[in-house]
C-alpha cells in the first residue's frame, strides 16, 4: 500500500494506523518532505509526486493499493499557493499516470473535499453526490479538488479494473486539526460576514482515518466501496453557534470589506483567508451523507456537534467562555427572582441564591417580558 502526503499530520496518523490491519503487508509512505512524526514500520520514501520518479516507487514496492491524501489546501512548511496547486494537480496527474502504467495497482482511494460543490446562494440547501454546483469554484483549493476529481474520473474510465473511491470530506476538525478552518476558529475574535450565518458540517479526524481504512481494503460486501461519497458528521452547526460554543466573540464585517480583512490577516500570517474560505463562511455548505451510510456502510462515531465539542475542548477557553455566560444569566435570574416573589414568602423557606446557579432555570415559553432576545437573530 502506498500513501501520499504522509508528512502531514493526518497522513502520518493514517500510515501508523493502517499498519496494524492484517490485510496490509507493507506501507510505503511518500512525501516531498521528511515527516516530523514517526511512521512506525512504514517505509518512508522521499519522493515528489510531481516527478515521474513516483512510477519507479510504485514498481519497486509492488504497490497494489494507492491512497492519495496529498490533496490539500495549505502548503506544508512554507511555499506559496502555486506549489500547493502544483502538488495537487500535477502531482495527481503524475500519480495517476504511474498507476495507469502499473498493472499491479487494483485500488485507488482519493481524499477530496466537499469544497468541490462551492457555496452559493443559488445552490440547494443540501448537496448530494450528484448535485452539480451552480457556480463552479473559480480558483483556489476548491478548483484544484474539482480538477483532481476530473483526472480521477478519467483514470477510472481508462482502468476499469481498478476500484476507484473518491471521498469528499466535509471540514475536518479535531484536537490535532491544522486546516484553514481550524486556524480560523482558533482566532481570539472571529471575523464573520455581516448578515450571514453559514451552516457548517464537520467530520472528526478519527472518522477520517476509519473511513479511509474501510475503503482502502477489499470490500466485505463486494464492489460497494468504490465511487464517490460525501463524508460528514450528522447534524449542522451555524457559525454563530460555533462561536458561542467556543466562547469566542464575533466581529461582523460587511461583505465588501471582508476581502480586505482577509488579506490583512493573511499578510500578518495569522490564517489563510482564501476566497473559497470566505464563501464558505458566507453561504455555508451542507452535504447529504445517505450514500455514505447506505452504500458504503460507514457510520461516523462523532456527530458534527460532538466533533466540534472535541475541537473546542482542545483549544481552551475563549474570551467569553459559555460557562461564564451561563453563570451570568443564572445570577441575573437569581437577582430578578428575589423581588418577583414577595407574596410567597410565608409559604416556603427561600433557598439561597447560589443553589440555582448549578441548574438552569426551567421551562420555556413565548415570553416577551424578558430581556434581550436580539442575540439569537
Amino acid at each position, binding site marked *: 500500500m502506498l500513501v501520499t502526503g504522509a508528512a502531514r499530520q493526518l497522513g502520518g496518523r493514517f500510515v501508523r494506523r493502517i499498519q496494524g490491519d492484517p490485510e496490509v503487508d507493507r506501507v510505503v509512505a511518500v512525501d516531498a518532505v521528511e515527516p516530523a512524526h514517526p511512521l512506525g514500520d512504514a517505509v518512508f520514501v522521499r519522493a515528489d509526486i510531481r516527478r515521474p520518479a513516483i512510477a519507479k516507487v510504485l514498481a519497486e514496492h509492488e504497490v497494489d493499493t494507492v491512497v492519495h491524501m496529498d490533496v490539500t489546501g495549505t502548503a506544508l512548511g512554507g511555499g506559496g499557493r502555486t506549489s500547493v496547486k502544483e502538488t495537487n494537480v500535477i502531482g495527481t496527474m503524475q500519480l495517476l499516470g504511474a498507476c495507469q502504467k502499473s498493472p499491479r495497482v487494483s485500488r485507488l482511494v482519493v481524499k477530496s473535499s466537499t469544497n468541490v460543490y462551492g457555496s452559493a446562494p443559488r445552490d440547494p440547501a443540501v448537496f448530494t453526490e450528484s448535485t452539480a454546483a451552480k457556480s463552479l469554484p473559480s480558483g483556489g483549493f476548491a478548483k484544484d479538488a474539482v480538477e483532481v476529481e476530473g483526472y480521477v474520473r478519467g483514470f477510472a474510465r481508462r482502468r476499469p479494473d481498478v476500484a476507484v473511491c473518491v471521498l469528499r470530506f466535509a471540514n475536518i476538525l479535531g484536537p490535532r486539526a491544522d486546516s484553514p478552518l481550524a486556524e480560523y476558529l482558533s482566532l481570539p475574535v472571529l471575523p464573520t460576514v455581516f448578515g450571514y450565518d453559514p451552516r457548517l458540517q464537520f467530520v472528526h479526524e478519527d472518522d477520517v482515518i476509519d473511513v479511509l481504512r474501510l475503503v482502502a481494503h477489499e470490500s466485505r460486501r463486494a464492489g460497494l466501496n468504490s465511487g464517490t461519497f460525501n463524508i460528514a458528521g450528522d447534524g449542522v452547526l451555524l457559525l454563530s453557534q460555533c462561536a458561542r460554543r467556543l466562547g469566542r466573540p464575533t466581529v461582523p464585517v460587511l461583505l465588501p470589506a471582508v476581502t480586505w480583512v482577509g488579506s490583512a490577516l493573511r499578510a500578518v500570517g495569522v490564517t489563510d483567508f482564501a476566497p473559497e474560505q470566505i464563501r464558505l463562511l458566507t453561504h455555508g455548505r451542507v452535504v447529504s451523507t445517505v450514500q455514505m451510510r447506505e452504500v458504503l456502510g460507514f457510520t461516523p462515531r462523532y456527530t458534527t456537534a460532538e466533533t466540534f465539542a472535541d475541537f473546542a475542548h482542545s483549544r481552551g477557553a475563549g474570551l467569553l467562555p459559555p460557562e461564564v455566560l451561563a453563570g451570568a*444569566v443564572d445570577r441575573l435570574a437569581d437577582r430578578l427572582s428575589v423581588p418577583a416573589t414577595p407574596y410567597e414568602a410565608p409559604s416556603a423557606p427561600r433557598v439561597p441564591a447560589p443553589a440555582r446557579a448549578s441548574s438552569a432555570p426551567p421551562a420555556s415559553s413565548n415570553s416577551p417580558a424578558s430581556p434581550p432576545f436580539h442575540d439569537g437573530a
Partner: protein
Amino acid sequence: MADAKVIPFDDDRSRARRRPSRAEGEAAAVRALPAPLRAPSRPAGPPEPEEAPEAGDGAPAARPGSGWERRLASGLAFLRRRVTGEYEVDEFGYDEELTDQVLMSLLRPVFEKYFRVEVKGVENIPAEGGALVVANHSGTLPLDGLMMQVAVHDHHPAGRHLRLLAADLVFVLPVVNELARKAGHTLACAEDAERLLRAGEIVGVMPEGFKGIGKPFGERYKLQRFGRGGFVSTALRAGVPIVPCSIVGAEEIYPMIGNARTLARLLGFPYFPLTPTFPWLGPLGMLPLPTKWTIQFGEPIETGDHPPEAAEDPMLMFNLTDQVREQIQHTLYKLLVQRRSVFF
C-alpha cells in the same frame, strides 16, 4: 441541556406534538405537583415542572405575579441556551426554538392586530405527513408568505410548521437570508422542496414568484402564470397532496402604481415599486396599508393516485397546474365578493 427543559405552552403546541412522549411525561409531572409548591424551593438538576397552560389560565387571578415570573424564568432559560449556543438547527438552518419564541412573537402582532387576518379551512392541511401549500403571491414585499406561516403556526390544530420556499434573491441579501433560513425558509428549487416533503414537512410555495408579487395594482387578484408547474411534479414525486391557498388583502398593502425599471436594474432587483407613499414619504412610505386579510386554505388535491412516472408527463402537469390555479382564482373571487371593504 436545554431540550429537556422545554415545556409546551400556549403557542408551543408544535413542540407538544413533535415530542409527544416528553410532553405527556411533563404533563403528568405537572399534575402531580400541586400549584402552591412553587418557585422559591427549586430542586437542583432535573427540570422543574412549571404550570401547564391549563393551570396557568386559572392561576393569574389568584397569584398575579406568577405568570410574569414564569415567563421571566423561561425567558432566561432561553437566553441561557442562546448565549451558550446549546440549541439545534436542522440541515436547512431552521431554528425551531428561535422561530417559535422570537420570530413568531414578532410577527404575531402584525398578524392579529395590524392585518387582522382571518384564517379559514386550515384543517385542510393534513395533521401529519407532507403537503404542498400553493398560494397566490402579491403585495410588493412578501409579507403574505410570512402571514401564511403565522396562520399555519398559530391556527393549525396540530401546530404544524410551514416551510416556505423563497426566491434566490432572499438568500443573496444579507440579514434577510440569515433570518429566512432560521425561520425555516429555503431556496425554491425542486431538490429542497422534495427533501422537505419527503421528510413529512408542510411546504409553502408561491409559484407566481416575482410576476405575482411585483404586478401593478391594476392587475390585483389576477393570477399570473404558475411558473412551469414544477411544484406539481415535485408534489407528485413526493406523493403528497397539494393544498391550494388564497390570500385576500395582501394586494392592497402597497398599491404599486409604477415601476422604476432603471433603478431596479441598477440595484439588481426584479422591480422597484412606486406606490402613492413610497418613495415620496421616505421611510414612512414603507409602512404597509392596514388592510383586512383573509387566508383561505382549500380542499387538498390528492396526487397519490398518479403513478410516479406521471411526474414526467407534461400534459398531466399542465392540467394539474391549471386545476390548482383555477381553484385559487375561484376562491379569490368568492372571497372578494364576500369582503365588505378593503380595510374592515
